[in-house]
């Protein structure tokens, strides 16, 4: 059994764990992140609405309200520093019934109370003027210019890479099986090692209650709340410009309809409490429900252009708010739990807050050599013809297009595999460079991406997985099997 010693161990390589890791890397501490899956960004962060919320929705005084506002304000600067896609496209909360207009006003007031800037109420005609595809029934909307959209993969992976480049160690495929308090701190048991850590940060998403409850009498209960989504082709991405929400009304809570930072159209989520923390099955009922709800607020959605559906789990803590901070009866153990919406928005602010708490407790000093700038994988579509030509001259692999739907070159795919914390699975490549994310859903590029992954990581194609170990794309050929290849 390998024994390892760290000042701080973070459980979970999602956006929260990686935001904390990256902020904690500013301090003179030995830090590790333990992630159960083969890659970071493999739980709740990989399947959500990808929204940077303005902050009018959270209850005033809640942690959700505080970190939402702070995170929203940080996002633009951070997107430049870490080179990930973020667009402040503004959001609209539609009201479809005159009777509900007072609720729209109340939402505005809540937002103002929370400190959200620029909120205004638009008339139905004003909404239709800026968003022609909303339903004719719209009688008004709350417009939040600070609302935005982000690439959750881009944000999570950028934070992880930057943390790693600043010395944080990442243990992937590393599930924490148990935690014991010791005089020095905590022992985290993994299948093949013990991680001794003075401080533990619990950022384990839907599993955060289990880890919390291993060290504390005051238990948490996290209910996995599933949300199904539909993703439409980029040809449908311009159907709306803003992120369209709906004021809760006769049709219930409604769903959002938004373009994504890459120009797709995203619809969802449903909200169904499920028993299993692994239950990411989409269901016909929920997909039908979100289709109907979306069609109720936005006209003529080209549902024929759906390219995939997926579902994710929100980590809903029964208390209803984020649970952030040192656990009272387990000093040195810090929670970042119950991080459901607006968790993605809040992540940068939660990262700063928790890192400061931990550093203060550890009495750690800031490092002089921290470098917060991370250069992402090249975005060829942002280059001029000359720049792109020069790139291909330098490295001809940028001239070979592998994923035709998203226009991804071999050069980008190789970079996604060979860079810091590079991709080891097909999904890892997909989340970093979008190969296989497009309208054919890897039908054409899948075989080529497997070949490149195998070559760059020195493995057999049969060993390449879709994501976690066991999700192998190909089967090993058995000796003696019928084989009549022409």
């Amino acid at each position, binding site marked *: 059994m390998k024994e390892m010693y760290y000042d701080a161990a973070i459980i979970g390589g999602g956006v929260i764990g990686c935001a904390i890791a990256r902020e904690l890397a500013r301090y003179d501490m030995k830090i590790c992140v333990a992630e159960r899956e083969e890659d970071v960004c493999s739980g709740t962060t990989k399947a959500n609405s990808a929204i940077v919320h303005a902050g009018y929705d959270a209850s005033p005084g809640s942690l959700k309200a505080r970190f939402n506002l702070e995170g929203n304000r940080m996002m633009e600067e951070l997107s430049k520093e870490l080179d990930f896609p973020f667009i402040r496209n503004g959001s609209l909360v539609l009201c479809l019934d005159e009777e509900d207009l007072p609720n729209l006003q109340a939402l505005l007031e809540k937002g103002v109370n929370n400190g959200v800037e620029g909120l205004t109420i638009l008339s139905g005609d004003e909404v239709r003027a800026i968003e022609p595809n909303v339903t004719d029934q719209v009688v008004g909307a709350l417009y939040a210019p600070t609302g935005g959209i982000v690439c959750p993969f881009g944000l999570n992976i950028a934070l992880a890479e930057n943390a790693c480049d600043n010395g944080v160690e990442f243990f992937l495929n590393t599930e924490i099986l148990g935690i014991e308090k010791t005089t020095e701190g905590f022992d985290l048991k993994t299948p093949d090692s013990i991680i001794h850590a003075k401080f533990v940060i619990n950022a384990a998403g839907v599993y955060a209650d289990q880890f919390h409850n291993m060290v504390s009498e005051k238990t948490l209960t996290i209910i996995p709340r599933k949300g199904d989504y*539909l*993703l439409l082709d980029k*040809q449908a991405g311009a159907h709306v410009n803003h992120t369209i929400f709906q004021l809760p009304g006769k049709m219930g809570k409604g769903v959002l309809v938004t373009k994504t930072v890459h120009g797709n159209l995203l619809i969802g989520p449903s909200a169904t409490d499920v028993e299993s923390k*692994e239950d*990411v*099955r*989409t269901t*016909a009922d929920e*997909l039908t429900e979100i289709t109907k709800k979306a069609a109720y607020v936005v006209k003529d959605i080209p549902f024929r252009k*759906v*390219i*995939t*559906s*997926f579902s994710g789990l929100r980590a809903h803590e029964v208390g209803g708010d984020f649970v952030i901070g040192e656990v009272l009866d387990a000093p040195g153990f810090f929670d970042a739990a119950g991080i459901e919406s607006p968790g993605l928005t809040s992540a940068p602010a939660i990262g700063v807050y928790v890192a400061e708490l931990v550093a203060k407790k550890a009495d750690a000093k800031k490092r002089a050599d921290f470098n917060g700038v991370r250069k992402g994988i090249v975005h060829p579509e942002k280059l001029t*013809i000359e720049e*792109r*030509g*020069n*790139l*291909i*001259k330098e490295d*001809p*692999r940028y*001239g*070979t*297009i592998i994923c*035709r739907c998203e*226009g991804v*070159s071999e050069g980008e795919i190789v970079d996604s595999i060979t860079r810091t914390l590079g991709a080891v699975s097909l999904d890892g490549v997909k989340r970093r460079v979008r190969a296989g994310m497009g*309208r*054919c*859903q*890897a*039908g*054409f590029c*899948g*075989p080529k991406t497997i*070949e490149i992954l195998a070559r760059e990581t020195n493995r057999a*194609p*049969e060993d390449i*997985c*879709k*994501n*976690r*170990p*066991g*999700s*192998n*794309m*190909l*089967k*090993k*050929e*058995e000796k003696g*099997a*019928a*084989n*009549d*290849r*022409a």
Partner: protein
Amino acid sequence: MTEHDIIIIGGGPAGLAAAVAARKAGITDILILERDEFLGGILNQCIHNGFGLHTFKEELTGPEYAARFIQMVEEEHIPYLLNTMVLDINSNKEVTIINKESGLTIIKARAIILAMGCRERPRGALNIPGYRPAGIYSAGTAQRFVNMEGKTVGKEVAILGSGDIGLIMARRMTLEGAKVKVVAELMPYSGGLKRNIVQCLDDYGIPLKLSHTVIAIEGKDRLTGITLAQVDENRKPISGTEEYISCDTLLLSVGLLPENELSEGAGVDLNPVTSGPFVDDRLETSTKGIFACGNVLHVHDLVDYVSEEASLAGVSAAAFLKEGQKKYADMVEIAAEHGVRYTVPQRLDKEHMEDQITVRFRVADVYQDRYISVYYDGERVSHKKKRVLAPGEMEQVILKKENLKDYPDLKKIVICTEVE
């Protein structure tokens, strides 16, 4: 900016036949652009036989059929670029291409022939609910793995959709040693050719379950099984008919979509029924000087018809260049009605048309003992009985210029099915 008389987008069967025909019609400056590392397109992975019965009067495999046309292209010294992806085509016929050798360049064409083929509908387009494990492939992707990469995709296989690639892969996987447990088809009839059902399923004892679909997908890592259910006339699953089938692989053969994203950039109008361009009898699209043929125009069953159609596109592009800006006469509309889903072409220039043209079409459902009729402005001019009509089998009628002469004011030709 370099300029060519004709640029052909795609070096598969359509692009190759179009190039050869344009060359034979006297055009020397032709360039074929192919994104893959070989010419021949999807034929390279279709190693089964059954190709070429119409074109060459013999039964060839896909690669053999492709090789015949590649040889003609080589003999005619028609230039082509491999590993070259077209990123954009605009209505000025400027084509943006990318490859390793020359980077990103823009070349101009006097005429363009679209021959990009089609892609398979993925799982997501069907919204099959459930987990998203490894082991779910479109049939063509599995075909590529097995036939070109020499890989094994799975051991226990279920296939959803009875399109021709799915049927071919049922046989292919069986020959590879896999157990193909079922082919399920949502519709009450197969979307594939009758001969493929006999030769690929019946001969191997593989059950075809019509009016069935996949309602759940199990397996968090690799696929472990699917649940099939029978569907009613509205294609909704019938409660109580669920059947669990354990399998490690699900192949999808649920439809092909012409790949027209580039065409749209060039301002080409698309027919929502075919997802391919609207064309006239010379296969010219709504953008003058841009022609379309093969599976990018509409999905074919037989490559022989692709070659024939593509030859017409090549000849037409050559004529376009020679005639310069010919005056377009008023077009006669060709309409699909009563059981006919679409026709290609959808309009006809009866002044400049060839002596005869072939109108290809598909029917909307399986019909027995029905007539295919042709009407000229309401007058029935042709009425032919067919024992069986099925959506999976492309049909055709021939229109002759000499017959059309008798209808100087003709506005609309209707092609339809009739019970009597």
